[in-house]
């Protein structure tokens, strides 16, 4: 399967008369764009803002990040979600680079929402401070979850995707500034040279913790909770087959932008044919019951063995009970004679002394660690807040709190904040961005 990503490097974004892209400048007709958002009448109040790296802006509660794309030939950017089902990962898809669409709640946050600082000390805690962002700030009539800690954020997330597709259409007729090719021949056909290179699979564990619909990561629109581990082509993940859910405490989250740009996939592609034979992706999940965890681990090890993999990288979207799946997969693979490396974050507590992973095994002897969800972060006030700062303390964001005997409230009167890394939007960069590690102190 061969995918061409046609990239356009966005240098500037501004509002203007006509929504168009020209030589690095993306212009947006705000009214027209908002009409796209209002297509869902659950959205009752929406606005658009533009922020860029260095702006003294704090965004909270952030629910999703999406890269604007256009699928050449038409068709939904997210098959099975924003339109009909079709095979992703082949043909040409155009992308607006160096930017994302961010979805921010006008008022109401939740456990799974997060925070982004575009400048200052807080900027380093998330990848999205490096991008130019078109920010959708909106409120919905989803009363049933307004005061709930656990939100599906359905209207807002789908509005974000519509907006991303709308912006992507600006390059429909244009020649890409650069083209990236992603091609992997069928495994059985791979040339003799490749047979000497060790076969490697990337095992992905997207979050699928909720039983009820509307919260979990989706694969072509299908709830990953209702999946058994499945062989997927890396191009599919890069090309819109997976979308983020609305559940995972935010620093552990893989946003849709993360899926579209998956650094681990890109790195394995880079090494393919040189140091390894990138066999493919085993898309697993993170269900709650012990039997489901064991079943998934079993399937992962079996698929990897059947493919003849010599090595596997396992990435976990989460912490807590998902650590059991993480460890189970690593152990099952090692027991099958496959060398593993795991990528995840840790939860060592505010004082750093808690057990890093809930379940551990000495066979998991090669791990990359991208951060501590419980790390305390204190930040000064920011001149502008997009969304609602109070949400951090009031709405049960995973890294914020109303009040604490020792630390006081997360959101102080002067606008300064104290929070846990847990609420940094996709902060632990498990998909491969993270320049953080964990050390003993």
């Amino acid at each position: 399967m061969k995918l061409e990503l046609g990239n356009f490097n966005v240098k500037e974004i501004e509002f203007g008369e006509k929504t168009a892209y020209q030589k690095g400048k993306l212009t947006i007709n705000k009214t027209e764009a908002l009409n796209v958002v209002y297509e869902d009448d659950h959205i009752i109040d929406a606005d658009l803002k533009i922020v860029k790296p260095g702006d003294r802006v704090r965004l909270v509660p952030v629910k999703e990040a999406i890269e604007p794309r256009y699928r050449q030939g038409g068709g939904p950017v997210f098959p099975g979600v924003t339109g009909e089902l079709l095979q992703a990962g082949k043909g040409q898809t155009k992308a607006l680079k160096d930017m994302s669409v961010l979805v921010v709640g006008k008022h109401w946050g939740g456990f799974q929402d997060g925070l982004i600082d575009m400048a200052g000390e807080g900027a380093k805690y998330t990848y999205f401070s490096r991008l130019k962002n078109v920010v959708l700030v909106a409120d919905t009539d989803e009363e049933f979850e307004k005061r709930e800690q656990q939100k599906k954020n359905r209207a807002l997330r789908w509005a974000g995707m519509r907006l991303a597709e709308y912006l992507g259409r600006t390059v429909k007729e244009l020649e890409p500034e650069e083209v990236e090719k992603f091609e992997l021949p069928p495994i059985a056909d791979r040339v003799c040279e490749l047979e000497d290179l060790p076969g490697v699979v990337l095992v992905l564990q997207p979050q699928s913790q909720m039983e009820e619909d509307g919260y979990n990561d989706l694969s072509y629109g299908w709830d990953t909770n209702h999946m058994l581990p499945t062989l997927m082509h890396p191009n599919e993940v890069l090309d819109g087959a997976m979308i983020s859910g609305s559940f995972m405490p935010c620093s552990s989250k893989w946003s849709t932008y993360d899926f579209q740009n998956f650094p681990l996939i890109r790195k394995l592609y880079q090494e393919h044919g040189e140091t390894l034979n990138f066999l493919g992706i085993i898309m697993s999940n993170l269900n709650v019951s012990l039997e489901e965890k064991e079943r998934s681990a079993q399937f992962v090890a079996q698929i990897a063995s059947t493919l003849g993999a010599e090595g596997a990288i396992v990435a976990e979207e989460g912490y807590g009970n998902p650590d059991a799946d993480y460890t189970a997969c690593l152990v099952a693979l090692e027991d099958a004679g496959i060398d593993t490396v795991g990528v995840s974050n840790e939860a060592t507590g505010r004082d750093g002394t808690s057990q890093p992973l809930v379940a551990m095994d000495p066979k998991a002897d090669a791990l990359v660690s991208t951060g501590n969800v419980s790390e305390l972060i204190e930040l000064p006030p920011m001149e502008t807040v997009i969304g609602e700062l109070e949400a951090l303390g009031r709405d049960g964001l995973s890294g914020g709190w109303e009040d604490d005997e020792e630390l006081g409230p997360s959101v102080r009167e002067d606008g300064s904040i104290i929070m846990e890394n847990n609420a940094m939007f996709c902060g632990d960069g498990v998909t491969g961005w993270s320049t953080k590690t964990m050390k003993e102190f």
Partner: protein
Amino acid sequence: MDKKAVVYINQFFGQIGGEEAADHPPEIQEGAVGAAQALAAGFEGKISHTVICGDNFMSSNQEEAVSRILEMLEDIDFDIFFAGPAFQAGRYGNACGAVGKAVKEEFEVPVISSMNEENPGVDIFKKDIYIFPGGRSGAKMQEDAGKMARFGNKILKEEGPFPADEEGFFKRGIRHQYFRPDEKPAAERAVEMLLKKMKGEEYTSELPIPEVDRVEIAPAIKDLSQVKVALVSSGGIVPIDNPDRIQSASATRWGKYSISGMDRLDNRSSQGFKTIHAGYDPAAADDDPNRVVPVDALRKYESEGRIGELHDYFYVTVGTGTTVGEAARMGREIAQDLKDAGVQAVILTST
């Protein structure tokens, strides 16, 4: 640097006396006394007081000793606390750890110690105080005290962070996130690690899985009256001439000695048994070896039918300074001998 330190040392390094002074109760003196001077040499601040306590007093009355020491420190103004270096001395290491931990909790100052990696105090207290790896004996005093003093200076002058792998102290089990100065992203780190692992090359996991040293639990004996029981000890009790030349410290040899026909172990002055263990005051053990290897008590239980039989031999080595590796080997060898003799249960005494 305008900072003050208090130092804790034992009776030997505090120049009170040797093993015979191990029962010395805690006391505090002004300035750097005895071995505390080795710390004064490297510490940029001033050592205002030295606390001295006998190792035995501490181990037999830990709560009392610690509480007295905390009281002594109540009115003293100090910024940092040093304990040791304790080298390989188990009681001293334990004392440094117990006192250090209490001082840290009570006064919230940094506490720094140094111990040899074989010192049991390391595993017990490394989470509570900074412990630097040290030598096996006082010969390393200058070096070990130097490391402690230098880190003391650093921690009082600088902001941190102080990663364990850069500073050198024993990992404390405190893990925090850290932005890599080289900004290498996780994707690269993961693929590089996998390539190394598949090639059989060395790599370092970013999350070492902590090793839990556990021993499989043996099922209980259903009925001791049917069973042969043996005594084993690390207390160094040997026949009067130490026939096997078991070392008094850092032992690599064990012995097996007949008690056939004996109701109890005869003591040293009767030319019976003695202790050769260098890690504790031998007086009580020499006077009555049954205090360490309770042959008399087991004989009584044997005559009462509580146990089936007391094995004809007891097994012994010396615990002090003995490495984990050597102890494990000796344990395996003794276990084999016991099994060959049909022994099913063991009482292991330690000092």
